[in-house]
């Protein structure tokens, strides 16, 4: 955690967009934070957990986004300023709470940060959270830079309290993970270690119990509040450049604004009227109408869906403004925008030649990149999931069906493991396995072996497992339990040995209590033990649960490195190695390489993290410990 985040006085620092949001929340007097991690939002949660140790705010890693969202509601209703953060798909999980709570409103400010991932850098789909804001009828602010993220976080709290509404602060990967200089304000008085803001829930059942007659009144009050917010605040949430410029206009928001500014210089033009809107729903009606009246032609530049564009067109129609409006006819709708994409869109809008031959460059880039060997992300050396996947395939063979889930272990899709046949959304491994098992009954019964991580199991697997057991399903569920939420940066989950405030929950006891037909716990580094458990499970019917438990290797090695400790390393005995490549072509640890000159495998000592699984995989006993790490 950077000192700039918790320094009481104002300061200037290099911050990620996500860190700027954290600082903005603290400057607004945040007291309660709850979230489930998810790229590109996770750094917000990580920073809050660290800050809670020095500033005395409450921060937790929640079991899932819905739980986090609802906990924040409780805090806000108790008079404590609250924040949750999540990735875009996290809002799908929390949307039940959002849709119902939207019209019930807040007491202390409540800001939900939702980070979209255009181009799906680390996600299973692309969705535009601004549409959720319109759906739930809550305001959404859309910052352009880290500085803007800090400022708009503060604005979000102001709006939330003034209009008693939940506010969504929407970021994208390119803002969350953009680093830039940020000038901070100072922290409010009242923060200190062991000095938590204490709230009190004041009963108001006529507002907080959403029975139909109360919900009807809440809805009307909320609609009025939103109308007022748009009318009163709208002109403070837009910025216009070159108000007396040309008769060509640009309306933009979020990171797209940056690309427009750069395209201007690139194309050598100036004087374009640019309106940047910081609130993309509700779009400030009067400022937009005035802007549209001042130009002949306007281009709306935004990433993903035409959220601003459709509102602009509606305003022009309602107000009878005669203006030519362009948007997604010239700006790509799929994937993230880039400076060059926006430069092309702008040159087409202005009927200018693009500043360089992008198509040629892109073609040259494609040809050249094709020469680089593909380097997809892969499970780490010593990753226990690799050993588990290897053992599952060994026991069940590739005739079995492998539904899987969201996490590092989705990488089991890649060769040579190929033990991931489906991946949809959090927890779907269990329910999809149930559907496949029921649908496939009577065809001779292919074995269905689902895999799910421990964090995902607690996030959304519990109800799916209950459903499968209660409906008499028939599959094996292997819980890949590395004791952490690894992909997003090692946040704890309810099954973790450390990092939680309360009690650790045992996955095997949960499965037993639910009535699973077999429950076993195995160590992934003991491959024959995993194969044995799999074989026992395959001999019976029903919902069988195997917990493959071993600490995340990356977490363990990072800790050892930090403490200056060493670990075991293995090497290939070249005399015994026959060059069969089982270790490479069936197991695939990135530390094991192929020496083409003498046709033997070898282990890169820098990359060996000492799990010893390859020694069990080698049919010729050629892999041994060479350095016991003491």
């Amino acid at each position, binding site marked *: 955690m950077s000192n700039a985040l918790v320094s009481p006085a104002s300061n200037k620092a290099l911050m990620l967009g996500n860190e700027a949001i954290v600082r903005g929340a603290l400057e607004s007097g945040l007291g309660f934070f709850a979230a489930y991690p998810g790229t*590109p939002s*996770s750094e917000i949660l990580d920073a809050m957990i660290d800050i809670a140790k020095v500033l005395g705010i409450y921060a937790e890693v929640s079991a899932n986004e819905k739980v986090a969202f609802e906990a924040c509601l409780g805090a806000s209703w108790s008079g404590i300023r609250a924040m949750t953060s999540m990735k875009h798909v996290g809002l799908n999980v929390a949307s039940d709470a959002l849709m119902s709570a939207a019209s019930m409103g807040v007491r202390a400010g409540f800001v939900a940060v939702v980070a979209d991932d255009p181009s799906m850098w680390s996600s299973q789909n692309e969705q535009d959270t601004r549409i959720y804001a319109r759906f739930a009828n809550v305001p959404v602010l859309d910052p352009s830079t880290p500085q803007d993220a800090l400022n708009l976080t503060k604005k979000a709290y102001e709006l939330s309290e003034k209009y008693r509404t939940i506010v969504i602060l929407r970021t994208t990967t390119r803002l969350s993970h953009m*680093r830039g200089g940020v000038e901070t304000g100072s922290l409010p008085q009242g923060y200190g270690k062991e000095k938590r803001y204490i709230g009190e829930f004041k009963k108001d059942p006529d507002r907080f119990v959403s029975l139909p007659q109360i919900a009807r009144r809440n809805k009307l009050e909320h609609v009025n509040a939103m109308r007022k917010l748009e009318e009163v605040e709208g002109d403070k949430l837009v910025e216009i450049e070159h108000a007396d410029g040309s008769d060509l206009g640009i309306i933009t928001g979020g990171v797209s604004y940056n690309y427009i500014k750069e395209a201007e210089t690139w194309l050598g033009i100036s004087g374009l009227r640019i309106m940047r809107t910081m609130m993309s729903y509700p779009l400030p009606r009067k400022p937009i109408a005035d802007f549209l009246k001042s130009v002949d032609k306007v281009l709306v530049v935004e990433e993903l869906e035409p959220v601003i564009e459709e509102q602009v067109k509606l305003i022009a129609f309602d107000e009878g403004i005669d203006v030519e409006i362009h948007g997604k006819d010239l700006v790509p709708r799929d994937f993230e925008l880039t400076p060059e994409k926006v430069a092309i869109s702008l040159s087409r809008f202005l009927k200018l030649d693009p500043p360089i031959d992008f198509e040629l460059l892109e073609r040259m880039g494609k040809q050249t990149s094709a020469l680089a060997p*593909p380097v997809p992300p892969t499970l780490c050396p010593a990753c226990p999931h690799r050993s588990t996947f290897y053992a599952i395939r060994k026991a069940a063979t590739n005739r079995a069906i492998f539904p899987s889930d969201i996490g590092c272990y989705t990488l089991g899709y890649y060769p040579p493991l190929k033990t991931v046949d489906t991946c949809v959304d959090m927890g779907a491994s269990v329910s999809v396995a149930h559907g496949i098992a029921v649908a496939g009954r009577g065809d001779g019964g292919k074995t269905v072996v689902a895999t799910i991580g421990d964090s995902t199991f607690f996030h959304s697997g519990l109800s799916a497992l209950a459903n499968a057991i209660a409906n008499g399903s028939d599959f094996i569920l292997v819980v890949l339990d590395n004791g952490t939420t690894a992909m997003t940066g090692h946040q704890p989950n309810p099954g973790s040995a450390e990092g939680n405030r309360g009690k650790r929950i045992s996955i095997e006891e949960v499965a037993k209590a639910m009535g699973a037909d077999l429950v076993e716990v195995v160590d992934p580094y003991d491959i024959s033990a995993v194969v044995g458990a799999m074989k026992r499970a395959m001999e019976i019917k029903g919902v069988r649960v195997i917990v493959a438990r071993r600490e995340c290797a990356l977490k363990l090695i990072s800790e050892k490195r930090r403490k200056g400790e060493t670990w075991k390393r293995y090497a290939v005995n070249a005399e015994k190695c026959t060059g069969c490549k089982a270790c490479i072509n069936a197991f695939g640890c990135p530390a094991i390489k192929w020496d083409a000159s003498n046709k033997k495998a070898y282990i890169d000592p820098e990359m060996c993290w000492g799990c010893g699984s390859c020694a069990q995989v080698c049919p010729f006993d050629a892999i041994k410990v060479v350095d016991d790490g003491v």
Partner: protein
Amino acid sequence: MEYNIIISGIGGQGVLTVARILGEAALYSGIKVRMSEVHGLSQRFGSIFAHVRMGDHVYGGLVPMGKGNMLLALEPAESLRYMHYMKKGGALVLNKNPIEPPQVSMGLFNYPNLLEIKDIATEKFGLRVIEVDAKKIAAEAGGELAQNSAMLGATLEIPGFPLTREAIVYAVRKVISSRYADINIKAIDLGSEETKKIVAAIF
């Protein structure tokens, strides 16, 4: 002034740390800086990149295609993915030590020849290639983990590079654990020293 850098490499090599050092050095020097990083999935030993942009008229974190001044490739083949983002005459600072990816070990793909990579950079994209044996330099400095500092040392020799040794050293001390700072600073100086002659010949 506008100076655009892309850093490419493989997850775990320290691409984000190098970017962070350049960013902190820019902030220290009073230069406006914007950076873009990749977190999450790709960090697991996959291809990874970061953009560092400096200058008064820099807004977003992404280097526009064809406007890059320097490609800092921590792994040779990884440079091939971003050459088209560079300007003609731009610098390719290349760590000559390959990391063989699993697809190559499995025999599914050939690793390109280092000479071929350099040829493409010079002939096809008009880049000036500064080859650095960062592994050797780091070993000399006292630890293989200091390879990226050797690369940073090389950048200091490139004409037009807007950061000074003082700023980089400040940033290294800020970003890297104090236990390793001295080794890294030594690697920076050795990296600069080794690069001087190559730069004099091609710039």
